[in-house]
């Protein structure tokens, strides 16, 4: 007879399966074996719990069931492959020594190991993302493929190769030691932010944003902060929350792009802003040398703090970009700094910096550079040069709403030229 507080196994799968999988990978030392074991454990639960009642420690039960089902499976396979018997014996011996799975709370949260393993630098970058989304977030191969607009088989291959690499190179299933942690954490943060950005602004296609990936990235970010409250992890979460808070304002009802200065700030999500600002502030307080994500979060927080675009503290933002440029110099950061300086000191000051960037050629194929430069040229009245800039931007822009926006600017500038 099912117990009065019977848990729906389907719901439990959604909430617990990733955590149980992470532990099974540690105990069984093999992704595929763990996936089989997870499947078997939930099958057993679906069959036994309605009959025997829900166990007091469901997670512990599932881990234990998975482990023993794996041993059974290996024993059966050993009839055809003697090697499997050795593996079965080892797992069984370890199971006997280990008393932890009586109690849910005694089982460590192995998801951190899983995240670090999936984001290991030895794996190809696209593989890290696919693996993390599937193993840590529970997305299907098909969902990942749809989200990134690539064929399902391509994603499947990446995941298969990644798992083979982990096995062949015996990548340790562990949280990196303190000396290696910053670099390894950077790989994890990079992967999460890539997922977020893929959801925030699709690289090509009709819609400006794909909500699901951004939500997934934020969930991952939260999990990471929960398990490893490092400053940069919190910085990334703050950054993502603050950028996400603007989602509703970023496109007009007709699907047109709305830039930050023109956004209806009443559409910004207040609770995400509050959380993001609090996180960004806490990080800023505790760290003497802020990392790149913390700085970007501070910039986003500065925007969020302004009730109207006109109230934006541009000098602060320019200073923050300067700090960011010092620790993580890049042409894009230089561009953003130039744009901020244009707002703080006037378009001419910003334009001077952009000309230097143009000369370097680093941003030649970046459509936003041409658009930003064209915008400043427009503001100082150099309409012909602005027109050339917008045309260059259009030649490179791939997203429909961005293209329409640029076409509108181009039309405005052409009218201004005609009016002269």
């Amino acid at each position, binding site marked *: 007879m099912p117990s009065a507080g019977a848990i729906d196994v389907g719901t439990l799968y959604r909430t617990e399966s990733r955590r149980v999988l992470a532990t099974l990978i540690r105990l069984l030392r093999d992704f595929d074996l763990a996936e*089989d074991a997870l499947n078997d454990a939930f099958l057993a639960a679906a069959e036994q719990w309605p009959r025997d009642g829900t166990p007091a420690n469901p997670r512990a039960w599932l881990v234990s069931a998975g482990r023993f089902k794996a041993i059974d499976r290996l024993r059966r396979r050993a009839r055809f492959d003697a090697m499997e018997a050795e593996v079965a014996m080892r797992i069984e011996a370890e199971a006997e020594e280990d008393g932890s799975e009586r109690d849910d709370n005694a089982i460590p949260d192995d998801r951190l190991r899983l995240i670090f393993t999936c984001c290991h630098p030895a794996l190809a970058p696209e593989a890290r993302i696919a693996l993390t989304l599937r193993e840590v977030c529970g997305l*299907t191969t098909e969902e990942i493929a749809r989200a990134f607009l690539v064929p399902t088989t391509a994603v499947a291959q990446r995941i298969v190769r990644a798992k083979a690499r982990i096995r062949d190179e015996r990548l340790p299933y562990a949280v990196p030691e303190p000396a290696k942690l910053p670099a390894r954490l950077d790989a994890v943060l990079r992967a999460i932010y890539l997922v977020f950005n893929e959801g925030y602004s699709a690289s090509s296609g009709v819609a400006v944003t794909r909500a699901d990936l951004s939500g997934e990235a934020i969930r991952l970010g939260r999990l990471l902060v929960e398990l490893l409250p490092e400053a940069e992890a919190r910085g990334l979460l703050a950054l993502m929350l603050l950028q996400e808070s603007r989602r509703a304002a970023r496109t007009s009802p007709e699907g047109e792009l709305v830039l930050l200065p023109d956004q209806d700030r009443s559409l910004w999500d207040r609770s995400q802003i509050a959380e993001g600002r609090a996180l960004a502030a806490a990080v800023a307080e505790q760290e003497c040398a802020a990392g790149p994500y913390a700085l970007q979060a501070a910039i986003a927080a500065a925007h969020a703090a302004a009730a109207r675009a006109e109230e934006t503290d541009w000098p602060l933002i320019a200073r923050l970009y300067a700090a960011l440029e010092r620790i993580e110099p890049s042409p894009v950061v230089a561009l953003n700094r130039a744009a901020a300086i244009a707002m703080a000191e006037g378009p001419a000051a910003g334009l001077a910096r952009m000309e230097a960037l143009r000369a370097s050629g680093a941003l030649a194929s970046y459509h936003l550079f041409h658009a930003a430069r064209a915008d400043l040229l427009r503001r100082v009245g150099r309409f012909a040069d602005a027109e050339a800039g917008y045309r260059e931007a259009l030649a490179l822009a791939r997203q429909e709403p961005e293209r329409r926006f640029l076409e509108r600017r181009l039309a405005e500038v052409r009218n201004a030229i005609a009016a002269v």
Partner: protein
Amino acid sequence: MKYLCLVCFDDATLAALPPAERTALNRESLAYDDELDRGGHLLAAQALQSVREAACVRVRNGRTSVTDGPFAETKEQLGGFILVEAHDMNEAIRLAAGIPLARLGTIEVRPIYEIPV
């Protein structure tokens, strides 16, 4: 989601195996079907007789024609199939990789297309 695993191999390779090995392979294949069934994955599985026993049927302009032999003359021919229920493509691939004949031949994994009503 459903996936069809088409088990393809060269008949000659199989025929070249010593009888004891062939028997072991058959037993292992049946055991694997059981493993899939226990895991809730098995929807259907069958081995096929040789392509020499195949017939190709076409109907054109109301006329039925039958030719003997396989649809296409390839080295590896369809020797069996397993229809599986899997969480996603990667799980289907994992299940396919466990098919004993995957070591000798190729398993083509095809996602099932649910025709809209």
